[in-house]
C-alpha cells in the first residue's frame, strides 16, 4: 500500500469487467491507428497518381496511347486512371457498333464513368466509418468501465467502518484508467476521421471535374466525327 501504485498494478488489479473494457479499448485504439496509417498512405498514393495522370492527360498525348498503356498495365489502375479507363473503354465499344446514335454513346460513357466514380468513392472511404465509430463510442465504453469500477469501489466502502480516502482512491484510480484509454483511442480517431473525410471530399471534387472535362472531350470527338 505504501509503495506507489504502478499503472500495471492498477490494470491488473481492476475487476474483470473493467479489464474487458480496457482490452476492447486497446484493441480499438490499435485498429484505429492501423487504419489511420493505412488511409494516410492510400490517400497520398491516390493523390499522387491523380496528379501524374492529369499531367500526362493534359500533355497532349493521344488518349488512345494512354488507354493502351493502362490496358497493358492491368494492375494498380486506381482513382482518375480508373475513371478514364472505364469511360474510354465504353466509348470505344459503343462506337465500334454500326449506326449508333452519338447521344446514346455519350449516355453509355457517362454511365460507365459514374459507376467507376462511385467505385472510387467507395475505395476512398474504406475504414473511415470505423474511425468514426471508434471516435464516437470509445469514450462511452471507457466511461462505462469507469462507472463500473467506481460502483464497485463504493460498494466496498459500504462495508468498511472507517471511511477514508485511501480506501476508495485506488479503486477510483484504476477505474479512471478505463476512461483514459477510451479518450486515448477516441481523440486520434476523431481527428483522423475529420482530416481524411475532408481529403476525400477534395479528391472527389477533382474526380468530378475530370469526369466532366473528359466527357466534354469525348462529346466533341464523337460529334466532330
Amino acid at each position, binding site marked *: 500500500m*505504501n509503495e*506507489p*501504485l*504502478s*499503472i*500495471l498494478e492498477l490494470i491488473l488489479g481492476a475487476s474483470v469487467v473493467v479489464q474487458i473494457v480496457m482490452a476492447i479499448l*486497446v484493441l480499438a*485504439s*490499435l*485498429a484505429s*491507428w*492501423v*487504419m*489511420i*496509417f*493505412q488511409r494516410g*498512405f*492510400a490517400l497520398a*498514393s491516390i493523390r499522387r497518381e491523380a496528379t501524374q495522370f492529369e499531367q500526362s492527360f493534359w500533355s497532349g498525348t493521344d488518349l488512345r496511347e494512354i488507354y493502351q498503356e493502362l490496358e497493358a498495365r492491368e494492375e494498380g489502375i486506381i482513382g482518375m486512371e480508373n475513371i478514364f479507363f472505364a469511360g474510354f473503354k465504353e466509348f470505344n465499344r459503343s462506337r465500334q457498333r454500326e449506326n449508333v446514335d452519338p447521344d446514346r454513346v455519350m449516355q453509355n460513357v457517362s454511365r460507365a464513368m459514374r459507376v467507376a466514380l462511385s467505385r472510387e468513392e467507395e475505395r476512398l472511404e474504406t475504414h473511415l466509418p470505423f474511425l468514426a465509430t471508434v471516435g464516437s463510442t470509445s469514450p462511452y465504453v471507457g466511461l462505462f468501465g469507469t462507472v463500473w469500477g467506481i460502483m464497485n469501489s463504493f460498494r466496498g466502502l459500504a462495508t468498511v467502518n*472507517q471511511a*477514508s*480516502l*485511501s480506501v476508495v*482512491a485506488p479503486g477510483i484510480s484504476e477505474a479512471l484508467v478505463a476512461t483514459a484509454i477510451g479518450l*486515448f483511442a477516441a481523440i486520434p480517431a476523431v481527428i483522423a476521421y475529420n482530416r481524411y473525410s475532408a481529403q476525400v471530399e477534395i479528391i472527389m471534387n477533382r474526380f468530378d471535374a475530370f469526369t466532366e472535362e473528359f466527357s466534354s472531350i469525348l462529346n466533341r470527338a464523337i460529334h466532330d466525327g
Partner: protein
Amino acid sequence: MSEKLTYVVSVSMALLVHLAVVGLLMANWSADAETEITTVKPYYIEAAMVAENPFTARQRKEQETRLARAQQQETARQRQAEQQAARAQADKSARQEKEKALQDAAARNERELARLRAAEQLARVESAKADQARQAEAEERDRVALEQSLAMAVSQEQAARRAITDDEKAMAYVAQIQRDIISNWSRPPSARNGMEALLRVFLVPTGEVVNVVVERSSDNDAFDRSAMQAVTKAGRFQVPPESRQFERSFREFTVLFRPEDLRL
C-alpha cells in the same frame, strides 16, 4: 506501394505508437504516485488518536505535559552530577519509552512501575551525596503519583472507549474543539498549578458558541475569565453535520481548564 505492404507498415507503426505511449506512461508514473501517498497518510493518524471525550482527553494531555516537564527538570538536575549523569540519562530514556508503552496498555503499567522503581533505587544507592538521594526520592514520589494518575486516566479512557461504541468521527470534532480552545487560551500571570475551572459551553447546530457559564469556579476571577475568553474567542467550532450526533454530544458540553504545566 502495394495494398498489402501498406497494411503491414501501418500495423507495425500502430504498434510502435502504442508501445511508445505505454513506455512513457510507465516512466512518468512513479513520481506522481509518491506525492499522492504522502498526502493520504495523516487521515488514519488523526482518526485513531482522538477516540476519547474532551474531558479525559484534556486530563490526559495535561498529565502528559506534566510528566514531560518533570522529566526535563530531572534532567537538568542530574546533569550536575558528573558520573551519574550518563547512567541516569540512559535509564531515563529507557523509561521514557516504557512510559509511552504505558499509555497504550494499562495492564503493563504495574510491572513497569516496579522496574522503574528498582532502577531508581539502584541510582540512589550509587549516588554518594545524601541530598541528591533525597532529591531523587522526591522526584520519584512525584513520578509514581504521576504515573498512577496517568494509569488511572488511561484506564478511565479505555473504559470510556469501550463504552463509546458510536462513531469515531465525533472524536475528530472533539479533538479539533480542544485544539481550538487551547490555541485561544492565554493564561493570566496569577494562574497556578492545581487551579481548576469547569465551564459549560452551549452551541447551536452551526457550531457557534451561544453561551458559556462557569460551572465550577477556580476561585480566581482572572483565571475564570481567561478560560471563558478562550471559548468565546474561538467563537465557532466545527461540529458534526448530522443533527442526531450534534444533539447527543455537542449541543452542550463541559470543558475543564487546568494549567498543570506551570512552574508555580
